[in-house]
């Protein structure tokens, strides 16, 4: 067999072995066997000297081509094997992608605070500022300056908690924040005041502590129709575009005219159910035009300015929204309750 045939045979053998190699180690031994310093190809080339220059050139060229071919082939195989090895490695370390995650769980929002913030943001978006006041409030701000004199039957509407601090009570509503705002700012005034309030009352629909949001807009030219406009925006934002709204004249000492606002029952859509006591309507907030006596108390000229005020109970809205049937659940803080509210804001 001449050298050319030998090289060709060597190539065939090498290719066969490369193909057969099952891992990098085997492949490497093939490389050493054929292409190494003491490899088979080198061995053949050592006999090159015996040949004529012509033949030498021919054989040399062939040997080089074969070398390159084999190297290329080994490289290819190497990549293949690496890929394979990696795939195996990955497979070996596979994850059950359905295992529970080990990151922290996101926390839950409290439905009342969530509802309160959402409502406040609706008014903030309309341009109202957020105001605040203390929960231990001056009796004068909670009652007298809101046109609720001592011994007025309206004080019966709100059963008050008295404290060991003369002249102060736990505020029974957020309305005193109106007084604070009007005593510290000159009109125009536009505020919403969210906060905790207290009344001596406890049953499935009443809690001795609950949350209210108060709103007040005082400026020249503010009318009852403006009040209706602002509340309509709020109610539609909160309960949906087509929610029926009804204004019923009512009485609050600090507004005149006063109204209760009802919305169409969100549970039965007006056909009558237990939630709306078969009336088809739900009482949702109280409102009215600021009473001139209140303006007098804070030194605003009623002949020049008018204003409207409204107040709403946050728990009621939260309970409607999430169909919660007992107000006490809101303040028990049983995590089995709270965890139901992870997805809300």
């Amino acid at each position, binding site marked *: 067999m001449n050298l050319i045939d030998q090289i060709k045979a060597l190539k065939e053998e090498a290719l066969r072995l490369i193909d057969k190699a099952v891992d990098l180690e085997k492949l490497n031994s093939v490389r050493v066997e054929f292409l190494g310093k003491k490899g088979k190809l080198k061995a053949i080339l050592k006999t090159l000297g015996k040949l004529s220059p012509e033949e030498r050139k021919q054989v040399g060229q062939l040997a080089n081509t074969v070398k390159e071919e084999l190297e290329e082939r080994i490289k290819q195989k190497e990549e293949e094997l690496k890929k394979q090895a990696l795939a195996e490695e990955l497979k070996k*370390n596979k994850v*059950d992608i359905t295992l529970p*995650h*080990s990151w*922290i*769980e996101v*926390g*839950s929002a409290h439905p*009342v*605070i969530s509802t309160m913030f959402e409502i406040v943001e609706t008014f903030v978006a309309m341009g109202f*500022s*957020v105001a605040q*006041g*203390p*929960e*231990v409030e*001056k009796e004068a701000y909670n009652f007298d300056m809101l046109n609720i004199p001592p*011994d*007025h*039957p309206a004080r019966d509407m709100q059963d008050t*908690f*008295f*404290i*060991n*601090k003369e002249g102060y009570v*736990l505020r029974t509503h957020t309305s005193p924040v109106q007084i*604070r705002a009007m*005593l*510290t700012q000159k009109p*125009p005034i*536009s505020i919403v005041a*969210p906060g*905790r309030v207290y009344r001596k009352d*406890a049953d499935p629909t009443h809690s*001795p*502590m609950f949350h209210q949001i108060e709103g007040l*807009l005082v*400026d020249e030219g503010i009318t*009852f*129709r*403006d009040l*209706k*406009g602002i509340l309509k*925006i709020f109610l539609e934002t909160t309960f949906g575009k087509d929610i029926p709204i*009804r*204004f*019923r*004249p*009512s*009485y609050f000492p600090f507004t005149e*005219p*006063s109204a209760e606002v009802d919305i169409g029952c969100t549970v039965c859509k007006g056909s009558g159910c237990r939630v709306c006591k078969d009336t088809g309507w739900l009482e949702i907030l109280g409102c009215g*035009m600021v009473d001139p006596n209140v303006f007098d108390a804070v030194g605003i000229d009623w002949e020049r300015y008018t204003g409207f005020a409204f107040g709403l109970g946050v728990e009621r809205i939260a309970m409607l929204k999430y169909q919660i049937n007992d107000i006490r659940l809101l*303040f*028990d*803080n*049983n*995590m089995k309750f*709270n*965890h139901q509210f992870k997805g809300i804001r």
Partner: protein
Amino acid sequence: MKVPYSWLKEFVDIQVSPQEVADRLNETGIEAVAYPFGERIENIVVGKILSVGKHPERDKLLVCKVSDGEREYQIITGATNVFPNGKVVLAKEGAVIQGKTIKPVKFGSLQSEGMLLSLEELGIGEDAEGILILPDEVKEGEDPNKLLGLGEDWIIEIEITPNRGDALSVKGLAREVGAVFGLKKRDKKPSVEIPQDDSIKIQVLTDKAYRYRGVIIQGVEIKPSPFDIQLKLIKAGQKPINNVVDITNYILLEEGQPLHAFDLDKIEGEVVVREAKEGEKVITLDGEERSLKQGDIVIADSKKVIAIAGIIGADNTKVDSNTRNILLEGAVFDNIQVRKTAKRLGITTESSYRFERGVDIQNLPNAQDRAVELILQTATGKATGYKDIYTKPYIPKEITLREKTTKRVLGIDIPKEEAKELLERLEIPTEITEGGTVSKIPAFRSLDLEREIDLVEEVGRLKGLNKLSETYPKIPTQAFRKSDEFNFDRRTRDFFKDIGFDEVVSYTFVDEEIYSILGLPVPPIRIKNYLLKIQSIMRDNLAVSLIKTLQYNLRFQNRDLKIFEISSTFFEDYEEIRLGLLATGKINRGFDFTKGETQYSTTQNWDFLKIKGAVESYLKMLGLDGVKYTQIDLPYINPYEGAKVSVNGVEVGYVGRIHPEKAEMLEIPKDTYIAELKLRCVGRTLNNQECGSDYLFNLWKNKDTVVFQELPKFPAVKRSLAFEVDEDLQVDKLLEAVKNFSPKIEAVELFDIYYLDENRKSVAVSVLFRDKEKSLSDEEVNQLVEQLVKDLQNRFNLKLRT
């Protein structure tokens, strides 16, 4: 108040359905519902009791023989007010009473063939005491459905707002209904003639009785009222008693005028309306002994108090079956005084309820004489005279209503002609003037209608507030203030929610006990008239509430808790809004697959550094640096695993682990961690002067804005150094000393601590050196390290470990 529709119709010709009346009343300001009076019941009949005997075996039951005119029934009853010849409603076999079908039932050896019905069982009253006794003139065999009008008449039940005392009567409601529907109300005028007799011994010694009118009626015969009067009272939800008492109640309901009948023969000497003496005692009609105070108004004779004015009569002059002569009182008392006294005594009567809300002083004689007329008709007798003490007759107040005011408040034009028409529908005499109207306010609205705005409301509500179209005001931009506090609270809330804490809302009032367990002084603000003793202290920290929440959850096997609350704590002069955190048990759940073939559960538990991390990340989120932790001294926090937290020298809260002793007493896990941060302060003065500025909100609001720093141009060199130091050296101090040593030290990072022996530990840090102007050479860094170590050795008992 329950107003039978048929009674209302005596005053106003209303043709629409009761439901429509109720709907329209709701729309114009009086809450009303309409429902049928009872429901037709089959198989009931008027029965006459023939005999009453004892049950031979059951001593609480009676055996009655009852005839319905056709046959006799044996009825066993537990009622005690049955008597021979009494007329009753008999439910026979097949009648459905409160959902149950009547069948013959055996009580012991005797069979009961039906049931005698009470008002409650008839579905028309709440009084289940005793069965309904019908008047004698009713014949056995008659149909009780027809007799009582079951399912035929309607009840309109109204609830008034405190300003609408004028609507608290059939007549008053008729006036309102008339106004709403544009109908004229009818009045009932008495035709009785009573001579004025100023010799009647009545004196008024207080200015809180605005009018006092007494009528003497002699020779009355006390007996049950005629059936039609009884039935009206039943429909209105009242219990008939006897003719005289029933008629005072009847007039109260119909005219809104409370009346009181005294047994004249029990009055000793002169009747005086006066202030009570301090501590004066009286037994009232309900059998209670009442103690009076100065300021209370009483009716008294020469010897005793005979009534608490406007509230309740005394037992000592009560009308009973032997009464022959009566003094019928009609009066108007000061509404505020009646309210004060009634509230203090804890009594609400139909009478006090009306006096508190205002009674029509002009209508008094009319109402009282109607009562006299009815008494004379039903109890015979003779009205021998009246005395009317009315020193300051009512003068109607004149109120001007300007067209422009209506426009300014309601946003619509109501021409003065229309305003006049609307007000006159309410029986308010009104004249047109320049630019508006002038009204003379009748007494029945005198408490409610005092100002122009009150008339705006009247025209507005009759016009229908619901019908006004909406307008959209410009929200005044000059009033717009940044709502920083709200935004701050919102960011805080979002942060803790997003890092896995559950938001809770707890009661701000707690019990004293938890304070004593925690070893804390009781806070300053307490509720005097608390509902529950355990809800009587206004908390001054959030830990008490968070611990309570934990205890509550442990009862439901919720052992892994990470909760937060942003809420108020209460101090003598101000309130602090705080953030409270409580964490215990597992911090997360899940699996780790990197540890070879086994996949481990990797839940981590809370520890001090984790809760501290939550606090510190929050402060970072707010952009606050300069956080320091120092020795804590709180009785419920483990002093070796807790710290006070301060930001730039301002103490803002604490973080730590519950003291194990307290954990045991509270029965909560020992690995409970609590943190509290003072967010902001709400003062009780208008300018919050009592608050100071040591709060996170203030620090946040006043912090420096971020200013961009040039990025480094030259490479940094990192060196790891290990120091041997005293065991009790706080690492923070060492790190700070390293960091502050040279401006060329960019960062220091702790990577290892281990304890060499009881007294010494090794602290390894990596230090990043960088010069802003050039690349640092190895030599320069070596030199810096050398100087650094020297400096540290001057400060601490420190050795560099090699």
